[in-house]
């Protein structure tokens, strides 16, 4: 592993190069490299530089507010937080089993979100690197450049995302930060008119999703050496898996495999995630580093997201996607593929699967039903887990007898991938930058590796740290608005 690049022994003698901010990803992050006089990379880190303090300020709020509040952690996949929190709160209100209508409306909402997020990620954010080249002209390396050179591809990407957003609007009430999912169920089902409107376009959407998988395969086949090796490292993997090992993004139990593909654990009830996982804090990032307790922090870190899910499951639930999964598995010779760029391939297989799943749900009469809510015996604690676009998302709450939240713990998808993304950064730094004059194009190679994970640094920022600095914020007339310093004992204080 590339442990030795995590921390240089004499950082003070080295030259610092920063990629700040990392762009064409969601959220706030930066990469720092420390180079010696011969441009050898001595240290490479991906830092998460923002915090929210969400786990603290959600305390004291009524539990039923949480699914609406928590999605403001992330505007790219608000539905993930909306539903994960709802699933935890289902247990608080004793709804161990949702009504068929509620469960299917939530699934529809979630798969709409998978569709829009995967489309956004691939077309709007990553396709410029893959279509133009990692060190191509910076002024064109974006969606505007794609729209100019490949208008058809850009248009499909925009319309795929639009359809996913429309599915969300019809199920959640609003494209971004809706309110459809509530503890114990949903607050609306689909009207016939809404269902028919979505049905009209779904075959076209499936076709375009299918085209997207073919596009990734074509890119891959144009340069297999690059796609198979870029930023590669071996890792364990984890995801939810549905009944009978089927790929399921809404519900299931936890399964893990090692880098050779052997099962590490299977069928683990996610209420017990705490038995499986532990988190480490590193001084240089706000994002924690989770790992499997049984293997420890050195060996136990893992990867989540499409690349893990498609290889962790036994089958995809829909025919076209299953066909593509088999082709993918065959390409790897039945051994796990670890190349970060293979994320794109599996992500597009999931895009296709989401489109097919949406079609099935749109032909299920339950989605226009009117039994929306379930309930039962109140509980004080609940864990809700789903597979968000980027990977496993864990929400854990305790609620007191006055309905107020007393404890909240979140492990978001991107946090699970923290070590993995740092590994990818170090692999690329070692392979492409070592000993060379740093250029914009070379630095973009590092971002290409980070982007493959589709990190959502926006929602990965709910912790808080302390810095050896002092800061003062002045308003336009020079008055102090806000100030903070570190006191002699290392704690924070507000200077007066």
């Amino acid at each position, binding site marked *: 592993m590339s442990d030795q690049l995590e921390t240089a022994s004499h950082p003070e003698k080295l030259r610092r190069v920063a990629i700040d901010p990392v762009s064409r990803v969601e959220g706030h992050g930066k990469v720092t490299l420390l180079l010696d006089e011969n441009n050898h990379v001595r240290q490479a880190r991906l830092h998460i530089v923002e915090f929210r303090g969400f786990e603290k300020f959600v305390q004291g709020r009524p539990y039923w507010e949480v699914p609406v509040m928590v999605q403001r952690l992330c505007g790219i996949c608000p539905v993930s937080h909306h539903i994960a929190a709802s699933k935890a709160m289902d247990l608080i209100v004793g709804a161990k089993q949702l009504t068929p209508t509620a469960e299917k409306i939530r699934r529809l909402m979630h798969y709409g979100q998978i569709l829009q997020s995967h489309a956004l990620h691939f077309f709007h954010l990553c396709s410029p690197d893959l279509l133009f080249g990692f060190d191509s002209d*910076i002024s064109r390396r974006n969606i505007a450049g794609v729209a100019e050179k490949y208008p058809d591809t850009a248009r499909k990407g925009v319309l795929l995302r639009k359809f996913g957003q429309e599915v969300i609007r019809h199920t959640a009430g609003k494209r971004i930060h809706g309110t459809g999912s509530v503890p114990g169920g949903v607050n609306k089902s689909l009207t016939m008119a809404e269902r028919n409107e979505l049905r009209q376009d779904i075959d076209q959407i499936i076709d375009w999703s299918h085209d997207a998988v073919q596009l990734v395969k074509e890119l891959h086949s144009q340069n297999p050496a690059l796609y198979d090796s870029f930023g590669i490292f071996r890792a364990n993997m984890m995801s939810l898996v549905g009944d009978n090992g089927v790929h399921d993004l809404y519900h299931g139990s936890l399964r893990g495999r090692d880098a050779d593909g052997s099962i590490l654990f299977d069928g683990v009830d996610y209420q017990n995630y705490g038995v499986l996982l532990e988190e480490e804090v590193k001084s240089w990032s706000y994002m924690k580093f989770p790992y499997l307790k049984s293997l420890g922090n050195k060996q136990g870190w893992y990867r989540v997201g499409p690349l893990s899910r498609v290889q962790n499951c036994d089958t995809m639930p829909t025919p076209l996607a299953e066909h593509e999964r088999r082709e993918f598995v065959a390409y790897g010779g039945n051994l796990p593929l670890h190349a970060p760029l293979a994320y794109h391939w599996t992500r597009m297989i999931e895009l296709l699967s989401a489109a097919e799943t949406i079609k099935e749900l749109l032909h299920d009469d339950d989605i226009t039903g009117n039994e929306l809510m379930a309930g039962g015996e109140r509980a004080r604690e609940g864990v809700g887990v789903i597979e968000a676009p980027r990977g496993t998302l864990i929400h854990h709450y305790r609620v007191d007898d006055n309905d107020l939240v007393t404890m909240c713990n979140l492990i978001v998808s991107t946090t699970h991938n923290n070590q993995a993304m740092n590994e990818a950064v170090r692999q690329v730094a070692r392979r492409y930058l070592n000993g060379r004059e740093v250029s914009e194009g070379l630095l973009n190679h590092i971002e290409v590796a980070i982007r493959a994970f589709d990190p959502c640094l926006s929602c990965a920022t709910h912790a808080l740290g302390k810095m050896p600095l002092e800061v003062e914020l002045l308003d336009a007339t020079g008055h102090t608005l806000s100030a903070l310093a570190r006191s002699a004992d290392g*704690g924070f204080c507000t200077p007066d």
Partner: protein
Amino acid sequence: MTAPPKLKIATTSLAGCFGCHMSLLDIDERLFDLLELVEFDRSPLTDIKHCGACDIGFIEGGVCNAENVHVLREFRANCRILIAVGACAINGGLPAQRNHLSLPSILEEVYHTSIGLAPGNAIPNDPELPLPLDKVHPLHEVVKIDYFIPGCPPSADAIWKVLNDILAGRKPELGHGLMHYD
């Protein structure tokens, strides 16, 4: 005849969730019309890391740390028209929920009493991490803002209307149906 030069627009998220940027993308196919008229400078959609001289600055999110202050001032210095987009930019939004708590108490929570942490963890402490402010601030407390688009997020139609008014040289007006505070 050559086309008139495109207006330059820079966008960024400070202490925001990117939802306002997503709402900008929710103009859907109209994005292609927009791209005929504007060119994106610094934005999460491009790889330009610092904003150059721009006509329009579009900022979501409030100000929660030292770095946000630098970026906001960079935008103000470079953008002719600066727009605060969404609840967070206008009044701090959800992240400002921490304003009634002290930072040490949040620290305490996350690093000493939080569940699932490995023993012996210390609080992050590195010069690469920008110092958080003790309160989350709206943008207009720090720099002059020219226009505000409320909502969490504002609808794509509201954003579209404001951009179009500016592109046409009109004073932006949201008008009935586009002014939302949800």
